[in-house]
């Protein structure tokens, strides 16, 4: 899991408004107009307090609250085109074998960060996005109501303490500086039949997108899922 946090932190260097950077699978795929079931893996959230001295103190309350906000926000977003959303609790619902697929997803997401978003872009992946978890994901489809798609989200980041903001002001006065807190969220859409990652996006939170608040989480998710195939309007779609 560690490589994901490190990679995600690279994205945190983007400040300002919520910015996103989307990738779509270059393998041909099509999404039906109405979807039966989507497996929504409970958002994996890690938020911490960035102290003046640069230590990240993990905050259980912020992480838990943000997780709830993101989960309900995602359910709302999916409600339009999806008949049923099954939320899968990372801690209690998954057995060891299913958990390996979640770990695999995280490993693949890590690779995507490195080779599509990071500095180590692979020349063979330049015009391609064909990452997959493999057809082993069918066991998730069977276990979770025959869902055809799964959505994974991982959010991480920190919020500066008051002390840090003051210290930042002091340092600026003396001609130096330090990084203030930032948060990012990544989401992926997985086809549970083939295991292909159909869509992948990373969003860096702007000032109005504090996921600890319900409203902020909604704003963040709106930016994040703007291009999500499951929610895109298609010509002649019915409500």
């Amino acid at each position, binding site marked *: *899991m560690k490589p994901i946090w490190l990679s995600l932190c690279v994205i945190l260097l983007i400040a300002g408004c919520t910015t996103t950077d989307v990738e779509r699978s270059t393998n041909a795929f099509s999404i039906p107009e109405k979807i039966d079931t989507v497996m929504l893996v409970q958002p994996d959230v*890690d938020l*911490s307090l960035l*102290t*003046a*001295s*640069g*230590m990240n*103190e*993990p*905050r*259980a*309350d912020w*992480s*838990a609250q943000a997780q709830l906000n993101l989960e309900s926000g995602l359910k709302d977003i999916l409600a339009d085109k999806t008949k049923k959303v099954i939320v899968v609790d*990372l*801690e209690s619902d*998954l*057995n*060891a074998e299913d*958990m*390996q697929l979640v*770990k695999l997803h995280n490993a693949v997401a890590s690779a995507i960060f490195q080779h599509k978003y990071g500095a180590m872009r692979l020349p063979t992946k330049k015009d391609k996005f064909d990452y997959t978890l493999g057809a082993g994901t069918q066991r998730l489809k069977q276990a979770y109501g025959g869902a055809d798609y799964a959505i994974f989200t991982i959010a991480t980041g920190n919020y500066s303490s008051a002390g840090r903001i003051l*210290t930042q002001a*002091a*340092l600026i006065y*003396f*001609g*130096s500086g330090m990084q203030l807190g930032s948060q990012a969220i990544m989401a992926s859409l997985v086809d549970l039949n083939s295991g292909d990652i159909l869509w992948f996006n990373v969003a860096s939170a702007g000032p109005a997108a504090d996921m600890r608040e319900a409203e902020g989480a909604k704003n963040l998710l709106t930016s994040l899922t703007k291009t999500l195939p499951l929610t895109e309007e298609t010509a002649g779609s019915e409500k």
Partner: protein
Amino acid sequence: MTILSAFRKRSLFICAAALLTSCAATDVAQREPGSRPENKSTDEAGIWRQMEKAEQRARTSGERIYDKKLNDYIHNIQCKIAPEYCDDIRIYVMQRPYSSATMAPNGYMEVWSGLLLRSENEAQLAFVLGHETGHFEENHSLEQWRTMRNTANALMIVSVAGAAAGVGLVGDLGYLVAIASLFAFSREKEEEADLLGIIRLDRAGYAASEAAKSWENLIAEVEDSSFRSKKRKIARASIFSTHPVTKERVRYLTEKAKTLSYGTKLGQDQHIAVISPFLENWFREDLRLKDYGTSLHLLTRYEKAGIRPGLVYYMTGEAYRLRREDGDNELAIGAYQKATKYADTPAAAHRALADFHVKKGEDAAALKSYRVYLDKAPAAPDKELIVHRIQTLQRKLAGTGS
């Protein structure tokens, strides 16, 4: 000159302020059984949550050993050692060829196969579990975290002061002193856990002398290591080492054991009986680390104790075969030959011997050993290969008329 002395005065003042901050209280009270952090905004709750996530990864890890008998055995020892925390501590046995056990502040403990392989008896294993319980009951993780935080604050004050003085990061010396004090705290905690562990060991009825023994065994094993850097590490004492120098640990544990005479149990038979089914697998994993010095040391210890000689001689042969130093081939053959005298030696011992016979041109002996191998392992995955080799040897022998 005057500017320099002004700066020196100011930095002394700042260092003092920094040190005072770092002395902010970090001692946490002893843990109450069954307690959890209630207030979710505390640093303790944050750490607890991180540990829960780590525990979930361990629980679903591909390296986990699920065998019920093994898990129950360790769990029972833990509850004997620390009955009040019996429900608070969850143990996960992991297939990892290093001698280690780890304890997280939320009660999640890992015991690694390398430790089980190296423990001679139940008492030695029980001491390690008691040591980890010591960390748990004294909330060492939380104390260490708070120390780090205070130290980081102190360092930051020094570096901000440095920026203010226009000298950039002036904290080099301050940094080194702070790091050293950080590690010293850590050594104190290890010693505290050692002493708590040995007291629990004695109270649970185990022989307290076994605590020092497990460290003595480790020292002796590492002294035989094929890697020089490994040998140096265990003995090196510096202000940066996190663990008290191992010989120092043996000393104070031996001293302490003299005052504890209640417990007498060793529990060797029970321990060997429980780990016996895993020995072949664990020795094989140990060989993968390629430290043949320590592998052979461990195998010799098992040989002297007379445990599973058929398996131990085979693994000894494997160690020599893989090490490939001058004269090792002969040593390997000798070990395999000893192994094949035992009915319970792995079938692969016969094949290994046969392979060496082929290398030396001793075709008749090779043929005999390959046949014994197939006899003992009729469903071997390399059956076709061995059958082919047997046929080739038969043809060769028929051709030369022997």
